[in-house]
Each structure stands twice: as C-alpha cells, then as structure tokens.
C-alpha cells in the first residue's frame, strides 16, 4: 500500500489515531499527528511512499501535536516529540509540515550510526553517485532540484548516508527543500516540478518543498557508489568555474559536514577516506543553472 491509495479522510484519521508507518529510504518512520496540514503535506509530497497502518516496527517514532496552554487560542504552536523527547522549541502551527521535515533530519542524524551521515545533496546517474557537500546556503538544494529534473536520480537533498559496512551510498529520497529566491528559480527551470505548501516567515525564510520524482522513490532500495565529490557555491553573476580539489582537503571538508563524525571515530575517518579515494573532487562556482547542468552532463558522459 502507498499513501496515494488512502483517501484524504482515511489518511487524516490514520495519522491522528494510530500513526502511519512510512517507508522512507532505509527507514520506517512512524508519524503520529492530528494536524490537518501534516496530512495534506503527506498527501501532496509523499503519495508514492509505501505505508503501513500501524507499523509493527519503526526505526523512528515521531509525533507532531498542537501545543496546549492558553497560547493555543491566540498563537497556536506545534510540538515535535521523538517518542516522548522534545529537543526543539515549539514552532507556529502553520509550520507543522516543514517542522516534520526538519525534525526527521534530526532523527536520522541522531539514530542511524551505521552510516556516516554527511550534510549534502546526493544524486545518481547509472550507478555513479555525486555528493554535493557544503555549508547551508551554498546552493546544494537548488542544484539538486534542477538535476533531478534533468535525468539524475534523487538520493537526498539533505544527507548522504554512507554505509560503514559496504561503503555504498543509500538513497533517502524525500522532498527537496528550497528557500527564498530558489523557489521561483526552480518553478521557472522545471515547470513540471510539484511543490508542497509554501511557508513564509520561518527561521529559514520562505520555504517550499519539491516532490521527489516517482522513479527515485520507487528505486529507494538501490544504493550506489560515490564517483564525484563536489563543493558547490552559488555566486550571483559569476561564470561557471571548476577547480579540482586535493583529496586531503576534500576529506577535511567532508568531515566538517558529517553530523556524526564525532561519534564514529576511526570508522568515520575510514569511510570518508574511501569516498575521497574513489571519487573525483571539485570545487564548483556557479550562478546560471543551465551552465551548471552542462557541467554535470559532461561528468555523466565521462569528460568533465
């Protein structure tokens, strides 16, 4: 069964009463919430994801509930709880769906230490994976949203899961999160892209999510191997500039972007070292998406 098999009333009821078991990449996520906008967001962006009601076993237990107290009458808020533990302050109720996406990132990064988890956008072509790492605001998600509308398969716009046992990269396809000017940029670039609700005035500015392509969701169980490691940077008005990067330098950059590097110790270092050894490493400056797409097309054809 997939989410799209449930009519909206059934989806809302199951989410509010027992919780849904969503199959997202390698994880089963149990989500429990009576908030209508969460059900709407799921219906719109997670239609093709396998679902179990209620799940027998879940890797991650999440709930999003309206906050109680007097404030609910004049400034309603939503609280995230990871099976009874709430690490974050409540957010305005209208941000419930993006809050789900942000909290799920936190859950994955704090639960799944069988992976080195790198803060990166990840796409694949013909079994070869490109990892776009770098600090927030460098334009990873924008590039990622563009690439998945030009024949690349979406692994994730947020985290690379590098298996410590096999060295493979596991897909974790989820909606791609776009901020501010990127939203209109991608609407123009890929008119076919399906957007979720737009949330203005979040702590990240205006945020909207683009639905993951059906093919990426259907093939979420097929891992790949890293071939390219890139540090993209958007610079307004700049021409495309590509610089090869030393492996040691790339390793340090990746380590700084690995959420659980401090937990993995030597195993984490080995995993990143293997990635760096197996991949071509570049620093990439861009401003025009079409130019950047040309570069990636050349990569895929084997002539950067």
């Amino acid at each position: 069964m997939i989410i799209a098999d449930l009519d909206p009333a059934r989806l809302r009821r199951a989410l509010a009463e027992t919780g849904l078991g969503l199959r997202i990449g390698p994880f089963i996520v149990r989500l429990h919430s009576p908030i209508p906008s969460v059900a709407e967001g799921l219906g719109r962006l997670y239609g093709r994801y396998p679902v179990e009601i209620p799940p027998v076993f879940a890797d991650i237990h999440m709930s999003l509930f309206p906050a109680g107290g007097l404030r609910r009458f004049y400034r309603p808020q939503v609280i995230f709880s990871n099976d009874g533990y709430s690490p974050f302050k409540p957010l305005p109720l209208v941000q419930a769906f993006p809050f789900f996406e942000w909290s799920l990132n936190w859950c994955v990064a704090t639960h799944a230490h069988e992976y080195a988890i790198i803060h990166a956008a990840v796409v694949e072509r013909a079994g070869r994976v490109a990892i776009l790492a770098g600090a927030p605001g460098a334009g990873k998600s924008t590039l990622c949203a563009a690439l998945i509308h030009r024949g690349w398969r979406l692994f994730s716009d947020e985290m690379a899961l590098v298996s410590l046992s096999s060295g493979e990269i596991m897909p974790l396809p989820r909606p791609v999160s776009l901020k501010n000017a990127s939203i209109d940029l991608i609407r123009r670039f890929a008119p076919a892209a399906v957007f979720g609700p737009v949330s203005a005035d979040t702590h990240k500015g205006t945020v909207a999510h683009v639905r993951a392509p059906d093919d990426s969701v259907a093939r979420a169980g097929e891992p790949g191997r890293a071939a390219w490691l890139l540090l993209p940077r958007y610079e307004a008005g700049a021409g495309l500039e590509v610089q090869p990067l030393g492996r040691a330098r790339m390793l340090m950059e990746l380590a700084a972007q690995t959420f659980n590097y401090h937990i993995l110790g030597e195993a984490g270092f080995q995993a990143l070292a293997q990635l760096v050894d197996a991949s071509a490493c570049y620093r990439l400056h861009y401003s025009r998406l079409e130019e950047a797409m040309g570069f990636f097309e050349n990569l895929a054809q084997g002539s950067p």
Partner: protein
Amino acid sequence: MKRLRSLLATSLVEPARCRDYDLARWDLLLRQARRADLLGTLAERLAMAGVLETVPRRPALHLASARRLAARHREIVRWDVRCLREELTELDCPIVLLKGAAYVMADLPPAVGRLFSDVDILVPRERLERVEAVLLSKGWAFSKLDAYDQRYYRQWMHELPPMHHTRRHSSLDVHHNILPSTAVVTPDARLLLEAARPVDGGGDGRLAILAPADMVLHSATHLFFDGELEHGLRDLVDLDALLRHFGSDGDFLPTLAQRAEQLGLGRPLYYAAWNCHRFLRTPLPEAWLQALAVQAPAWPGRDFMQACFDRALQPDHASCRDAFSGLARWLLYVRSHALRMPLHLLLPHLARKAWRGHFGGRETV
C-alpha cells in the same frame, strides 16, 4: 502501573528471553531502552549472552548503533581523564574519580554500554580553591556564570558550579563531598578520601576511585537521596551491576552495611538494595535485606515511598506510565530537594528554577 518489571527490566536481567521476541516486542523494547538511556547497556548484555546474532535485522541495526555510540563515549571519558590528569599534575592531593569515570577507568561492569555526560571528581575541601585555580588556568571555565548560580553552589552545594573545557567541550563537576552541607545527613568526606584506592591508568597514582562500599553508597545516595531520578532505572542498573560484581566477595555485603551506618547512609542503602532486588532481581541474601529494613521509614511512609519508587524507577516511556507516574516523579523531585536543603532555602530556590524553566529552555531547530 501496568506491570512492575517493564519489558526493558526483564530483558536486561534475562537477555536470553529476547530470542523469542517478535518485531512488535522489539519495537517496544528499543523504545523503552532509548528513553531510559539504556540502549547501549541492553545491546552489550545481549552480546554477552550470545543473543545478538539472533536479533532480527532492523532492531539489530539500532543495537549496533548504540554499541558504537557507547564505545565512543567510553573512549572520550578515557581521553578526558588522561587530559585532566595532565592538567592537575601540579597538585599534590589525590583526585578521586566518581561515578561514570570511575567505572570506566576501573573497568567495572556498569561502564559497559553506558553513556556519560560529564566527569565527576572528589577533592579534599581544603584544596578546593587551589583545584579551582589550576583548572581555570588550564582552559576550564564555569558553564553557569549567573551570580545566583555561583552563590547557590558555593554557599550550599557539595560541588563547584559545573565547568566545561573551552577547547575540548568536556564537562566537569568538582565535588568536595557526596552530599551538600545543608542536607539532613552529611557524611564525613575525609573518611571517603582516606579509603579511596589508586586506579590503573592513574599515572603517578594520584588518580583514585572510592572504595567498593563507598562507591555503592555514593551511587545509592545519588539515586535515593538527593537525585532527581531523571534516569532512575539507569542508575538502578548501575547499582545492580556494582552489587553483583562486588558481592561475589563474601565479605562485601556485611562491610557495606557497616560502612553505611558509619557514614549515616543506612536509609539510601536500604532503598537501593530493596529496589535492586525488586526490579532487577539482584541476588542479595534474604537475611541481609531484612537486617537493612530497620532503616526503612515507618508504615505508612514505607509503602507510600515504595509506591512512588515503583513508578519513578520505570523507563520514562509512555508504555510504562499510569495515572500517578507524573505525581510520583514530582513528589520525589520535591523530596530530593527537601532532603538537600531546609525549607526556608528551598522554596525561593525552586521558585526561581520554575521561573527560569518556563522562560529559558530548549534549542530552536
């Protein structure tokens, strides 16, 4: 309460039972263990019982992840202790490691699979100022700089305000006793320091740990006297592991009871022993337990306290709560403070904490 022994407590004591669990049971067990901060401990016990290979793939990944995290915590504690030893070389007094750091450095059973948040040390009171000065000169700083906190700790508590290292991001609590001077009993810290023994990896022998009986009493005091029971079951699991380990020496239990009397800690030992036996089936002789019971409060206080502990020592998970769990935890919280401080000091302090708890708080996403 739904049942006295949670699925987690049963599985920790008899890991072999986990062979028969279906996925739904694994789901519940992992959730209870995570909330109780005992997932790593559970994983290590399953490994020692040879059960880990029979665990289905999905739960097994969580157990492996928890073992990895716990192993890393252990490494970090060892590293922190090594750094601390270097930083304190110029002091000529013993540095006694307490709780988690002591378990790790002495390779005691509770260290296996456990998570650690900070390093705790005990130093002689008359050397406290010197220790503080040396630490501040070596990159340690106070985590709470608020004038109220500083005064609260220095005036009433048995420790300096919590410190953190500005480069290593480690945390440190420096104690001069195991209970505050305002508490209804204050053990003589000199007795604890005199009985302390050197620990391997302590370099020139200045690093020490408490004597076995004192270690158990400190853990019991922390849980059943002034602690806030946030991690009640985890602390009880520590106590159980210590009692099983040291208890294999036949002289240990009588020594322990005597020492408790000498230090005025008979009541916490009574609670510790009885609850270990009750929740985790710690093998303790019936006669020895009965002898400790003279320390119990009179009826009906005894039954009332037990009803509170029966709830507060459950994993802090929805599946282990009943209508009175919240009240029981709250009463024990108030009790722990009331035992620590007389009422005229306590009330303003709690009011202040409540105010700050309401307006301070958690991270934003």
